[in-house]
């Protein structure tokens, strides 16, 4: 069972990479694989060097073969092997996504639970409108506003970047630099996570209310079991389940939203890398980032599915739940 799903996941990633590969190679105009002006003679030599003068199917085959050997290719826009560039940027993206997810779910969960416990009263109404507003904001707009407010006007946070250039240039190699990294991470992670948190809060609230009206809760109530305990236990359990579902669904959003946030905050992550790669038509880099991105999404979903099944064997269904619908 798991094996079949694993194979399916690999097939999906394969399909994604093929699609991206084809797209970038059939795009009109064959620019020079170089980031500086070169004259036509050098250009055709460079093309030969990168194998760009061969027909597309052949290029595809060669790419697959290289991939099988673990060779991700050479990026001409960065002038280094793709693997090196990715190895440097992926940790940053993971840090940002991880922190954002943390803020998203912690805040969202707490808000949703609180709202559900005060349903239809003032706090619920106020929070409900606030979350609605935040959920509707364009993330990049929020990023600009937060940057203006907290970095420029108040000076509480750094203006972009991932680490202090003097004290921590070699990454996180001490407790001090760990703190420094968090200080740099806070603003972009909050931006990414806040909008997500608003969505999670709305979702959780609805899910918890849904549980509260279920038969088994009513039964327990009728039986005289203390309502709070029953409701809370079932609500939390259901919350956990939908949490796991949404966890798997949150991945693509984070990778998507990350491009804009990374650009605005100068965060050296994979989103920005991919964006620049597309604009400079750096074939190898683009396909490699597509590979990584889709792998993260697909395996994230798979993990979420498996966790879901483990948590509740009754729910041995594929997570055909979309982000909008409230029912289980």
């Amino acid at each position, binding site marked *: 069972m798991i094996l079949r799903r694993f194979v399916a996941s690999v097939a999906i990633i394969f399909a994604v990479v093929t699609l991206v590969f084809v797209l970038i190679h059939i795009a009109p105009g064959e620019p020079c694989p170089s980031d500086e002006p070169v004259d036509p003679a050098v250009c055709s030599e460079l093309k030969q060097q990168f194998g760009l003068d061969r027909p597309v199917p052949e290029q595809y085959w060669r790419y697959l073969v290289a991939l099988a050997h673990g060779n991700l290719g050479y990026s001409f826009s960065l002038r280094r092997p793709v693997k090196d560039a990715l190895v440097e940027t992926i940790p940053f993206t993971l840090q940002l996504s991880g922190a954002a997810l943390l803020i998203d779910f912690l805040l969202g969960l707490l808000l949703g639970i609180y709202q559900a416990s005060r349903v239809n009263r003032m706090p619920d109404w106020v929070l409900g409108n606030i979350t*609605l507003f935040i959920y509707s904001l364009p993330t*990049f707009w929020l990023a600009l506003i937060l940057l203006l407010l907290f970095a420029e006007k108040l000076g509480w946070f750094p203006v972009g970047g991932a680490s202090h250039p003097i004290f921590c240039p070699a990454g996180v190699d001490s407790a001090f630099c760990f703190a420094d990294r968090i200080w740099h991470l806070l603003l972009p992670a909050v931006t990414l996570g806040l909008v997500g948190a608003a969505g999670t809060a709305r979702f959780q609230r609805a899910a918890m209310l849904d549980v509260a009206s279920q038969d088994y809760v009513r039964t327990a109530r009728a039986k005289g079991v203390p309502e709070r305990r029953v409701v809370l236990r079932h609500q939390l359990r259901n919350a956990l389940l939908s949490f796991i579902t949404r966890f798997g669904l949150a991945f693509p959003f984070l990778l998507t939203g990350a491009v804009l946030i990374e650009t605005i905050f100068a965060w050296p992550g994979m989103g920005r890398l991919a964006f620049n790669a*597309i604009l400079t038509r750096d074939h190898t880099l683009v396909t490699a980032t597509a590979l990584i991105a889709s792998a993260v999404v697909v395996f994230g979903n798979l993990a979420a599915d498996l966790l879901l099944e483990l948590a509740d064997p009754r729910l041995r269904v594929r997570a055909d739940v979309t982000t909008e*619908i409230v029912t289980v």
Partner: protein
Amino acid sequence: MTLGTWLALVVALVLSGELVRALRQRALRGNRDRWRRFFKHRTTSWGIGILTFLAIVALAAPLLAPYPPNQQLDIVQLKNHGPSWTFILGTDVLSRDVWSRLVWGARVSLGIGALGALVAISVGTVVGALSGYYRRWVDTVLMRSVDVGLALPRIFILLMVVALWDGLPFAALVLAIGLTSWFGTSRLVRAEVLSLREREFVMAARALGMGGARVIFRHVLPNAAAPIIVSAALGVGNVLLLEASLSFLGIGVAPPDPSWGNMIADGASEIYSAPWTTIFPGLAIALVVMSLNAIADGLRDALDPREEPA
């Protein structure tokens, strides 16, 4: 702002307010259960009101905008002026009236939102219906494609398409956005169709010898309308945000024509000296998306009887 445009603005505000109020009264007094549930929460009414207002603004743009949106009024004297009585939302770095651009930009942004969502919903519905109805290999093939589609970061593909084929016409942009946004809807529709498929009226129709397409379109889909409509409402908001993101990255609507997204992009570099050029388009987008979400909430309440607050 000229007298004429002030008048038009007031008329638009009053019109949308009255429309919503009238609808609400009728719904609350009437005996249609769904309508009553829809208008129960105040936020839904506000949502409809705001959306109506913005729709009127977009449609009546020539009446509401005192200046042409692309006209640089006086690049030396009127650059980066804050909100005032003449320019209620101020001027931008090229001395263009922000209010006029917002009004004309509403056409572009809302238009892209509606059209893009239309494409997405249509394709998603068809795929989901076919998949749910015919099942077996049709289902497998289609749903695998949906999996592939969901695995792709959407902005990634859009970036590639738009950035690599430069000089794409407006319609192609809308199409591209629509064609990358239908995956969620298809899953939704599929789930609904799967459950509806086993209902008696469907079996009856099939027993009567009705062809598949006919069964789907005349019997199954109308009953699956609820989630589709909700999806559509939310879809417009998503497309709007997507267009804004693309314009911010420089690959959406081309200058000088305004769209709310590229207004934010243009204003981003002036955010310290003229923050109003960024704030107002962002608020406009937030308002629209908020209204749509509120309406979707109301629709869910109205169309899904299982939902019951504790």
